């Protein structure tokens, strides 16, 4: 518990909400899905698809992750974490019941209400698919509000495809298509072996009444963007989340800026129209 004396003064924005790890599920060989529950009823954590939070591995540090769950389902706070550095390695060691902490939610979100009645194209590569999962959940839970949905999920190999256990549910939804692709197949893979930008060119999605949401490694975003533009998509029809090194999430540490914009506060969700107007181009 936080000392009472500080609750009267300016609250310390670096102290996480105490949380308990409820479950850990392997999504891929190096990605785990963590479900957390906040320990105190008074801690408010209302979030929307696209927002992120810091998760603590006490003794090692904390790192920011897109929230993978949706708030309205009240199934706990979920994060898909790829083991890639010291904090994520420590998080991967945790077992259900472990005590952790969450700071957030931070940043803006995908304005899904503005996309109603549009054709939605969702393109995710690797762990970049994590912040897109709550977008898919929200759209499919409110299926009548949206026109056709095309989901393109790509990964290095078949076993690296995130959220494979949910694919069947997604395609059961009306007017919803799921396309999978991998950089390299294996003996059990009968599907597509292609890079995401090439799949865009193959599928030729129409820009008419469409919004495209992309998330993935910078190199994938770069080439996917140019293929979409060849197909006639305008910058304002393409939305992404930017990634930035960040330590605070509060617009203070000045690690995540792109020009005068903070990824943590002004983003992470930006349209390419916004990004192309940034003074600093990454």
């Amino acid at each position, binding site marked *: *518990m*936080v*000392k009472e*004396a*500080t609750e009267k*003064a*300016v*609250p*310390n*924005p*670096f*102290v*996480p909400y*105490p949380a308990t790890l409820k479950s850990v599920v392997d999504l891929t060989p190096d990605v785990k899905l963590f479900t957390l529950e906040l*320990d105190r009823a008074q801690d408010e954590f209302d979030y929307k698809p696209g927002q992120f939070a810091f998760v*603590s591995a*006490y*003794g*090692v*540090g*904390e*790192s920011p992750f897109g929230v993978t769950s949706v708030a309205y389902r009240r199934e706990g706070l979920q994060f898909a974490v*790829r083991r*890639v*550095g010291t904090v*994520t390695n420590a998080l991967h060691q945790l077992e259900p019941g472990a*005590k952790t*902490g969450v700071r957030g939610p931070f940043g803006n979100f995908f304005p899904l209400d503005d996309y109603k009645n549009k054709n939605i194209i969702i393109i995710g590569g690797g762990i970049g698919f994590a912040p897109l999962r709550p977008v898919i959940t929200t759209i499919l839970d409110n299926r009548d509000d949206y026109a056709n949905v095309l989901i393109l999920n790509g990964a290095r190999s078949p076993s690296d495809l995130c959220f494979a256990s949910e694919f069947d549910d997604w395609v059961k939804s009306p007017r919803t298509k799921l396309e999978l692709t991998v950089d390299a197949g294996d003996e059990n893979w009968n599907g597509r072996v292609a890079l995401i930008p090439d799949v865009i060119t193959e599928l030729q999605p129409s820009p008419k009444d469409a919004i495209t949401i992309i998330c993935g*490694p*910078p190199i994938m975003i770069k080439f996917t963007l140019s293929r979409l533009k060849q197909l006639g998509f305008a910058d304002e029809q393409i939305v992404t989340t930017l*990634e*930035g*090194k960040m*330590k*605070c999430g*509060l*617009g*203070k*540490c*000045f*690690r*995540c*800026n*792109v*020009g*005068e914009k903070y990824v943590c506060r002004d983003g992470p969700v930006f349209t390419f129209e916004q990004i192309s107007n940034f*003074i*600093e181009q*990454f």
Partner: protein
Amino acid sequence: MTKIIGKNELESWLSGIMKERTVFAPTRVDDLILFRPVRSANEIVFDYENTNLSPKELFFPRTETLFTAVPKDGDIELTPTIVDQEVILFGIRPCDARGIAILDGPFLDEPADSLWAQHREKTTMIGLSCTKPAPQCFCTSMGSAPNDASNVDIMLTQVEDGYAVETITEKGEKLLQGVELRESDVQPPVPTCDVNIPAEGIVEAITKMFDDPYWSRLADRCIHCNVCAYVCPTCYCFDIRDRTDKGKTERIRTWESCQSKGFTRIAGGYDPRADKGTRLRQRFCHKLLYFPQQFGALGCVGCGRCVIACPVNIDIREIISDVQKIGAEVGQGSN
């Protein structure tokens, strides 16, 4: 009428304060003048151009524990840091006081940084006007002045028989309670700093020449030693890490610099500012473009410390002039 405190009275007033509260003042440490806690007035150096480091670290320490995390009964007890030490900061120069006021921008922006806010609340600043600017000084070009009293609680200006006293804030008034000040018709001297760095219009100029190869040329000689950020009164980038000893974890904040390799490297290895040119541009664009866009003021106070400290003579005064010149050329070219 000017209110005057004699040198002896000033020393005995400060000595009185030292009995109850921590007083930080300029002291001699080897060859340097640095702010240190003092226990007696004779430790204080009154005659100095400026301290080698600004007192920024009293508000934003080089290393500060944000909170501690200790396992307890199957739970983890989190205890945020509470700043309870009241500090009197004596001898801060107007440029450095402006630096503190400038950093209120990011740190007190909602949600406020509670540690900065507490340090600010617990500290009373007694400023000391500059009598003579140092060769590297250019505070007047950055919106301040050698006798600028606007960012301290009490301002002192040396006169022949002591110090002219201006009470600026309630906090200052409280500290001065019971101190006898002489009335005098002596007018305190108005020191000047007549170096003129062309900072006006720098936001427009740097915007125009943002993509100029100037930055990578200039950065060729940068050895990313980070000393510029270390001595700067307005650099505030930071890192956060955990440190654990005997089961007790401290989440600590430390100073960082945008010139560090890997400052912006993200998980997976991609670094949007992998080269020195974009990193150097980040430093100067933060001070001369982003900070004014976000908070109004330029992120430089003209103390000149980085000019002295840089081992390869990267000089913000020259950069401002160059940026104006290149910006004007680029502007003409595009019209």
